[in-house]
């Protein structure tokens, strides 16, 4: 029982870290991994999702519906931003750093001015359960499941649907996709919207577990970028294994040496993985496949 309890504890921790990395990264995997837009406002999309979720729940909606509202709202904001700003920057990916940084400043401070420096949260739903020596939050299991569902859905969307094929074509050679009859403007817009909506979903899912402040998105962004980049160019063959590898390393080091070691070891793992696999994990997986 001792061993079982310890084993479950570790799996739970690794799963928790995995879920956090996947959910933090999934929106970015599309916006950055696929579209090449370095979206420094990713955290603010997450914040948007979280805030809207909290408002919706406070207005009386049940949490799942609240999260849906948050997802939708972030998606709509994403589409709006795509139309106004990002659209003009696809052939200049590095400039997106500046533009999205600007957007991030506006969003964080704007929310601070409009809604105040902090807001009351909604409290974590479900209760706790005990396994062996420890008690755990059930809601965290929901987060893990959500991460897996999101990954599967994305895989299906991008590899099995016409939209997915068109999106990838648009991102690789936009003018050719256009010349072959793909409405690339629409595709860009929807893809960006999807990425933003996923960020919003993440915000909604984590909203009950976190303090609501305008800068809350910042805690996701580093992990998100690291996961996407370690994953490499292919979003789905990349993000999931990257999150798994980093999640296990982080959980192991955190339980062994504490949070700082967990954080630093994750960063060092990033450096090493990229050194060994200069094109990321998916670059390596796809290397011989042709």
């Amino acid at each position, binding site marked *: 029982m001792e061993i079982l309890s310890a084993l479950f*504890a570790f799996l*739970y*921790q690794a799963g*928790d*870290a995995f879920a*956090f990395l996947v959910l933090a990264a999934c929106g970015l995997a599309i916006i950055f991994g696929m579209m090449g837009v370095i979206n420094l406002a990713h955290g603010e999309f997450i914040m948007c999702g979280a805030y809207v979720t909290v408002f919706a729940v406070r207005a009386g909606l049940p949490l799942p519906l609240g999260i849906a509202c948050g997802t939708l709202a972030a998606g709509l904001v994403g589409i709006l931003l795509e139309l106004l700003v990002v659209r003009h920057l696809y052939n200049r990916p590095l400039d997106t750093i500046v533009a999205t940084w600007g957007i991030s400043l506006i969003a964080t*401070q704007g929310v*601070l001015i409009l809604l*105040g*420096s*902090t*807001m*009351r*949260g*909604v*409290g*974590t739903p*479900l*209760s*706790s359960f*005990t396994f062996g*020596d*420890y*008690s*755990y*939050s059930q*809601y*965290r299991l929901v987060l893990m499941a959500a991460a897996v569902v999101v990954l599967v859905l994305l895989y299906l969307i991008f590899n099995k649907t016409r939209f997915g094929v068109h999106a990838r074509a648009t991102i690789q050679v936009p003018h050719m996709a256009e010349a072959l009859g793909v409405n690339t403007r629409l595709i860009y817009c929807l893809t960006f919207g999807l990425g933003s909506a996923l960020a919003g979903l993440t915000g909604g899912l984590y909203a*009950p*577990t*976190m*303090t*609501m*402040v305008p*800068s*809350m998105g*910042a*805690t996701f962004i580093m992990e998100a970028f690291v996961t996407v980049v370690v994953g490499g160019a292919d979003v789905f063959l990349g993000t999931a294994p990257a999150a798994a590898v980093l999640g296990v390393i982080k*959980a192991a080091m*955190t*339980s062994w040496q*504490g*949070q*700082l070691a*967990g*954080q630093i070891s994750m960063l060092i793992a990033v450096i090493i993985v990229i050194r060994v696999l200069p094109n990321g994990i998916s670059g390596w997986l796809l290397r011989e496949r042709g």
Partner: protein
Amino acid sequence: QSPVKIGVLEDQSGEFAAATLPKVHGIELATEEINKAGGIAGRKIELVVYDTQSDNTRYQEMMRRVLQRDKVDVVFAGFSSASREAYRPIVNQFNGLAFYNNQYEGGVCDANMIVTGAVPEQQFSTLIPWMMEKYGKKVYTIAADYNFGQISAEWVRQIVKENGGEMVGEEFIPLGVSQFSQTIQNIQRVKPDILMTLLVGTAQASYYEQAAAANLKVPMGSSVNVGQGYEHKRFTPPSLANMHVTTNYIEEVDTPESKAFISKWRAKYPNEPYINQEAENSYHAIYLYKQMVERAGSTDREKIRGVIAKGDVCVDAPEGKVCIDPKSQHASHTIYLAQVGADHSITFPKVWNDIKPYWLGDAGCDLTKSDPSAQYTPSNPPPKG
């Protein structure tokens, strides 16, 4: 008559804004009152306010600006310890005078600085013995992994030992960490009687929600929560239940002075989310300064320090009586033990009057004699001699 110029550098945006905005309001409120009543020795107060955006480099830029260009008489500045350390060399260079109105890890021995916030010896020497008596002797600390957290943890360790307790664990969390599943598990493993949470920043505050969700119910103690970040108002009950905090003021303090203060405040700032201890510190600091200037007959730093050296600069603040200790130039406080209920209501099981910031003076810092312009800790005390 020329006005008395007070520079105000506080974080009105960025990470720390939640806890700092009320500080600016406190200063403005006191200023308005004093100006209405005729000013400081007949001179009006003029505030020069800059937003430092929770950014240390802005403190450097703006501290130089208020001292060199705006030529203020005194500066009220800083929330985080890092920001204080960023501007301190500049205050020293220009021989200015700065008030740091913030609860912090203690130990700054600098003639250019006056500190009105509470320090660990005031908060922990009261809180920990009380909690150990009530809940047990096994203590676990989780603390932010930087100076404030580490030094506070050092204090906890020392006081627990002095009172015959046992540290069963200590964990430091880097700033910006928001996920605590592992930490929660570590705490469950050793089953402490008391959990000291010395977490800082909005990201780390997520701990409470997550611990509650995992059904962790160890009585908690802290020197920062409630009094600074009013978590009991922001979080959904019962995530902060069973939290114990020693603070020199919060808006729930139920004295006539406090009530009068609150109603003045609410009249001016009806939308203030919360009036925290730093807000009250900043408010009464203006009155302390007024008294110093009036007694010194000047805003000259040395003359003011001469007044402080007499050891009787005191005001009746909303919290109670506050005096400036001449050796360390820190303030003595009334310390309230605030206990958070399951519905996040506050009760005060105990109040200590006139707790002195004794440690620096005892350890050898004496600003009436010499000015080392340094920060000390229990494990790095002032050199003897």
